């Protein structure tokens, strides 16, 4: 099996807030024979986009310029990062004024943004670059009988014209990848809705209302767990849900896709950081 290398873009929140996502991603990639170049990168720019579009694009473009300088495709497990990097890619192509301005800033470091830096999300790497068939071959502990609500998140999905992740109105990539693990992806009406995390600590009332709607819908659709493939979404469904938990309602466990896949591949739960999830999910023993 050929070793592929991606420039790994974990984003800012994984090291201190969701280290299990980093660990499980690296464990799964290692199993797949994919190498991750861990050159130091900077913030994708998503959080600062509220204040300054140019700042957000400059930050994103710098990462793309580093990937370009290394000749490596970039892969990120976070959908907010993926989305902002794709926005940068789109607008840097279209807007020559922006391109000039950003490249002038990057030139001070000897960097330059050029077109055609491949930007991948963890899921697109697994789906398109690795493929269901090869993944299937590595499954030793299928999660049969597990009903999973696949939460797509927003920033990779929309606007489809810019993110080019999947069909924005009826995507299938996540259900396909869930099926690979042997689990059943439930159909749920609110599957494409927002988790609410972008409003966390800005307007908690709306943030938690959006989250609650999704969880109710997932439960009503028969899901036993939620799965996410984005740092922010997981922080919302795991950390925030745990904080908001009331005594009367059992929280719905949210499991990172890399944790699901890792268990199905037979990796030990400790490597995947299952213990770090605030809401515990214990996989059935085969």
């Amino acid at each position: 099996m050929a070793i592929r290398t991606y420039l790994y873009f974990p984003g800012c929140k994984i090291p201190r807030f969701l280290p299990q996502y980093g660990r499980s991603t690296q464990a799964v990639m290692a199993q797949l024979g994919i190498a991750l170049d861990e050159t130091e990168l900077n913030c994708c720019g998503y959080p600062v986009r509220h204040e300054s579009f140019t700042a957000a694009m400059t930050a994103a473009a710098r990462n793309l310029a580093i990937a370009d300088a290394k000749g490596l495709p970039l892969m990120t497990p976070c959908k907010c990062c993926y989305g902002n990097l794709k926005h940068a890619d789109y607008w840097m192509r279209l807007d020559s004024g922006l391109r000039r301005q950003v490249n002038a800033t990057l030139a001070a470091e000897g960097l330059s943004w050029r077109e055609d830096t491949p930007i991948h999300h963890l899921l697109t790497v697994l789906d398109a670059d690795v493929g269901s068939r090869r993944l299937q071959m590595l499954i030793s502990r299928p999660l049969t009988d597990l009903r999973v609500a696949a939460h797509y998140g927003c920033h990779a999905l929309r606007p489809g014209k810019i993110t080019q992740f999947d069909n924005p109105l009826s995507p299938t990539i996540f259900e396909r990848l869930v099926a690979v693990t042997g689990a059943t992806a439930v159909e749920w009406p609110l599957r494409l809705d927002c988790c609410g995390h972008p409003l966390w600590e800005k307007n908690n009332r709306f943030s938690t209302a959006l989250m609650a709607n999704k969880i109710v819908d997932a439960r009503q659709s028969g899901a036993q767990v939620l799965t996410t493939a984005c740092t922010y979404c997981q922080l919302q469904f795991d950390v925030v849900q745990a904080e908001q938990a009331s005594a009367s309602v059992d929280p719905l466990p949210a499991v990172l896709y890399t944790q699901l896949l890792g268990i199905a591949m037979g990796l030990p739960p400790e490597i995947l950081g299952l213990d770090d999830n605030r809401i515990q999910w214990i996989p059935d023993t085969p």
Partner: protein
Amino acid sequence: MFLTYCAYLSLAVCVAGILWRARRWFFSAIGPEARLSTPGQRMVVMFTALPGILFSRKIWTIFKALMLDVLLQRQIFRQSVVRWIMHMGICYGVLSLILVHALDDLILADLVTDYAATRNPYLFLRNLLGSAVLVGLAIAVVRRHHVAVLKRFNTVWDRAILVILAIIIFSGIGLEATRMISASLFEEMVADYWGSDDTEEITALKSFWAQQFHVVFATPPPLDASHLDTGRQLHADYCAGCHSSVRAAFVALPLAKAITPMAAIFDRMRIDTWLWYFHYLASCLALAVLPFGKLFHLFSVPLSLAVSSLGPAVGQRPESRPIRRAMGLDACTHCGVCSRHCSVTPIATVISNATILPSEKIAEVGRLARDQLTIQRRWRLSQGSRTCTACGRCSDLCPSGIDLQDLWSASTADLNRSGYPGPHGWIRNQSVEQWADHAREEILAPASTDRPRFTGNPNTFWACVQCTTCTSVCPVVAASDDPRRDLDMTPQQVMNLMRLELKDLALGCRMVWDCVTCYKCQEHCPQGVPVADVLYELRNEACRRLDPAVPKKD
């Protein structure tokens, strides 16, 4: 006598200053926990915790940290060998000079039976250590002027500390060189240590010393063999006990040779005495100001490294955290490593606010803690603080062991609580109409890098037919049982305002700020209006025109 009094006075000022600074660690109230205890209680907590640390396994952890991170400075070595060389040179050069030279009559004179400053190895050591410090200082100067990110932010103390040390070292070398060539000093030494009246013999000694020790006499003594032999013999009897060959002074000797042409003038003016006073007093001054500037890191950094070896601040008792934070503030040496690796440094190239960079933010946080910030600077610090993404890299890299991540979350919480929130917070301070009036009155802030791509172009909104699809798909609208009350306007109403070129009315709408950026509106709009991008742009514009952190023109 006068100099000794100066030394004791400087020492007293130094000790008093250290105590004053240490007191500040208990009286600083940084972070939400600070309100839960008084300074007195914090002192009690810390002192009662000390035995538990000193007489447990933890003392070994601290010992290891002191060995590896203070004595060997491995954190610096891992980051940059050149910087390690620089710091080892300055650090060990200065500390060793203090021990073997400045305090020679207190330490070495007691330990060694026939100590004399002019003997080897002490003569050689002084020159060696002095040159180690100079090499370190040279690297430091180059670094401060050439490293990107850092060179813009050098403070007075960054320069002052290098200047003070350079003055002390250079004056020391100058002192040694001028003493070497001083004829008057030779006369004094002959009177004190030999007491001979025999002019023939003194001339012979002069010959020897002129040749071997480079003393410059007004009348050059004869350098024939018989004089030199006699001189050598006399030297062996009366001088050699304390005086090793000056060839060991490999820095001072070349200087002495170089200033030989000026020897007569220097001797007449007794430059050597002036330099003696200058060198001594410069050192006393450095000692006295030590607690008040960057030199304090001699104490604060080892302490910070010892404390941080016990774990991050978050694991400590609530009463200890403000102490830890205050200690951390005093341990910053402005080395700038944090800013060189900070995740949001690229953002600081666009948003002109130095407090985005951790090395600059920490100084402001210190001023915030001491209540020394104006309102405008608090707003700026608030903007710098929220730009931080809490990635923790600065904390991981800080060679002084400061728990920066904890400092940032504590100071940001303090700012939020004291009325300096981010835009999603301060926008709620006024109504839509009040913000609209505000926007009309505000003169535009200095040249912005953000040109309104959509909101500045009316064509963007002509396609909007008010079909209300964007509103129907918006999850935030759906989560509200009274959108008018909660959001002021729905998305399609905001688009309508834009269509009517009433942008100022849109800036303060809660819909703009409670948008969750899910992009459903933009995805579903049948007319291709980039609704979500427009809302982003409105936020950008509000931040540009209304953000209290952005300085406005008069």
